[in-house]
């Protein structure tokens, strides 16, 4: 079925369409665009002692000349990149398995892979302390077989990394599996028929069709990781802190909304970069 050309649409119906679209657009403008503009304006016009608000980059200069803030930005980028790398390493084989395997075991694996989606992160955080924390289940099991205790990742930068990887597995696997839908069984079988080894098969047949979904994973999870709050808050070290907890603390405890908005703007700039990456990946896919 083909879509009717636009010119056929009667004027009154066009108005109805616009009205229908207006609700989400207005909501988006009100709840997203307006806060961004308002926040940006506040961050760029620091309040002076006399109450005036001239345009100035003072807040940003303060941020980038403060080693404490920079360390927080650094740990955020470090956590995001490490988590992303681990996610790809874990989830690509998992997605390949789920795409090609059949039978009962695959169903169980899929259930396990989707399970984290239904666990709230605050529950996950406390379970993490129980399992991987000091004298947690991992330690008890190791101790039972006479092995030394692990050095717990709890309250170190690796705590949030492990938690975030586990939390993000379902979304990553879902996106990758849907991307693998583009790989037809015929193409795989044809390559096998001419004697392609598994690695060659992956490299020449599967990977080229997966790139878009990998790009989507990179941008989606990076956005999610940048915005993460609960896991770094509960599992991470006191210092340096990730941008999420840092912003919240600046806003609420230090009662400094201007600096919190500055931190939010800087975080936003990084997220926009990944957002653009996503848009390009999707646009390129449409073009094909």
């Amino acid at each position, binding site marked *: 079925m083909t879509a009717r050309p636009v010119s056929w649409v009667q004027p009154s119906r066009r108005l109805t369409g616009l009205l229908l679209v207006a609700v989400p657009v207005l909501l988006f403008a009100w709840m997203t665009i307006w806060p961004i503009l308002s926040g940006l304006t506040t961050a760029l016009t620091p309040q002076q002692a006399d109450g005036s608000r001239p345009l100035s980059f003072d807040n940003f200069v303060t941020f980038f000349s403060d080693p*404490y803030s920079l*360390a927080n930005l650094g740990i955020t980028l470090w956590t995001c990149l490490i988590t992303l790398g681990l996610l790809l390493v874990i989830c690509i084989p998992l997605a390949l398995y789920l795409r090609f395997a059949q039978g009962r075991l695959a169903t169980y694996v899929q259930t396990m892979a989707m399970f984290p989606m239904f666990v709230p992160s605050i529950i996950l955080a*406390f379970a993490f*302390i*129980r399992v991987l*924390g*000091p*004298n*947690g289940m991992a330690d008890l099991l190791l101790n039972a077989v006479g092995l030394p205790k692990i050095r*717990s990742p*709890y*309250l*170190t930068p690796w705590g949030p990394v492990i938690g975030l990887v586990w939390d993000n597995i379902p979304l990553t696997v879902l996106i990758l599996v849907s991307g693998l839908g583009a790989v037809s069984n015929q193409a795989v079988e044809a390559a096998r028929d001419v004697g392609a080894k598994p690695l060659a098969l992956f490299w020449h047949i599967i990977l080229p069709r997966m790139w878009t979904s990998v790009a989507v994973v990179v941008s989606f999870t990076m956005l999610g990781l940048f915005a993460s709050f609960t896991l770094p*808050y*509960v599992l*991470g*070290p*006191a*210092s*340096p*802190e990730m941008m999420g907890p840092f912003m919240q*603390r600046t806003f609420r*405890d*230090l*009662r*400094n909304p201007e600096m919190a908005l500055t931190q939010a703007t800087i975080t936003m700039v990084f997220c926009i970069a990944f957002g653009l990456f996503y848009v390009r990946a999707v646009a390129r896919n449409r073009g094909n």
Partner: protein
Amino acid sequence: MKRRAFLISAGGVAAGMVLLPRVSSAAEGKIDWYTSSDTNILDFWTNVIAPKFEAANPGLSINLIDAGDGAGQDAIADRALAAMQTSTDPQADYFETADPLSPKGAMEAGLYVNLKESLSNWSKVNPLAIETDFAVPYRGSQVLLAYDTTKLPAADVPKTWDDLVTWIKANPGQFIYNRPDKGGSGGNFVRRAIHEANGRDPSLFTLDNFTPEYAEKTLAPAWEILNDIAPSLFDNGAYTSGNTQSVQLLGQSAVTMIPAWSDQALQGIATGVLPETTGLVQLTDLAFSGGFSRGVVLSNGANKDAALKLADFVLTEEIQGAIIVELGGFPGVSWDNVAEDLRNKYKDIVPSSIPTFPGGDWGSAISDGWYRNVAPNVDRNA
């Protein structure tokens, strides 16, 4: 067509009636009670105080309303103040815990009843807990040290700040406190260090005397004290992100001692989160800071007299005992007015003084100062 028009107009009237503000007045003998506290407090009132009060006062009942949070209850207080100016019914009689200084001007306008003059049990109230005559401190909680008696016998437990520091250094990795902004147990541990650095004189810190220079002068020595013990803390200087996580680490036997809220520790022991062998101790040279919850009675409430009876009732030995046993809180009355067996059981944690630390700008200065000066200065892998 007529039928449809009728339907539409009838529907409109019905909807309008639903949307109309419903005018109702408070029921006679039913105290409209609001709280902004946590669920455990509402549960305690629902299951303990309300049934006991209703049994003791036939004809009176309590309408327990959860205001959600402080902002929710402030809105009720604002409404009561407005109702006072128009002489209407505020539909509120009692706030479980409130600051009579809020909303601004309410106390001067006479919104809250002077409880010192109105309550027969006021003389029982612990004088250390009284802040104003307009609010009755009926339950409290204080930070103290919770420790594992299987690793540290009660006889050897440190009872002064100096002993505590010596113990922490002699037992590296066995103590942890939470980040000062993430929970009161760590927050008041840090405040105790600030008191220690300034001659153990809590009167040096008031809400009004904050200036950045004064804060710098008084806080910097405290950061030195805390940095000094940092390498001997759990995992070479780790800090949990909340009261609960510290309790969890003590429960998992990962550390030997933590600062903890009294009610949280007592409740933890009662529910098995902390083992029976958990000991509690308060420092004797200067106690950790704490806080009291203070109830207020609204002077323009329709059931003011009943509400005053309730305020008197929560100070009775029966309810104060329940606050200790069931809630794990501190009594609002002096310990002399608590049942003798309870007084003996908890004699180790009865404070001789209840220091407090002002909030406001001090809170922000302490949080920011600690994060910048204490949290990062440790090489965790050393």
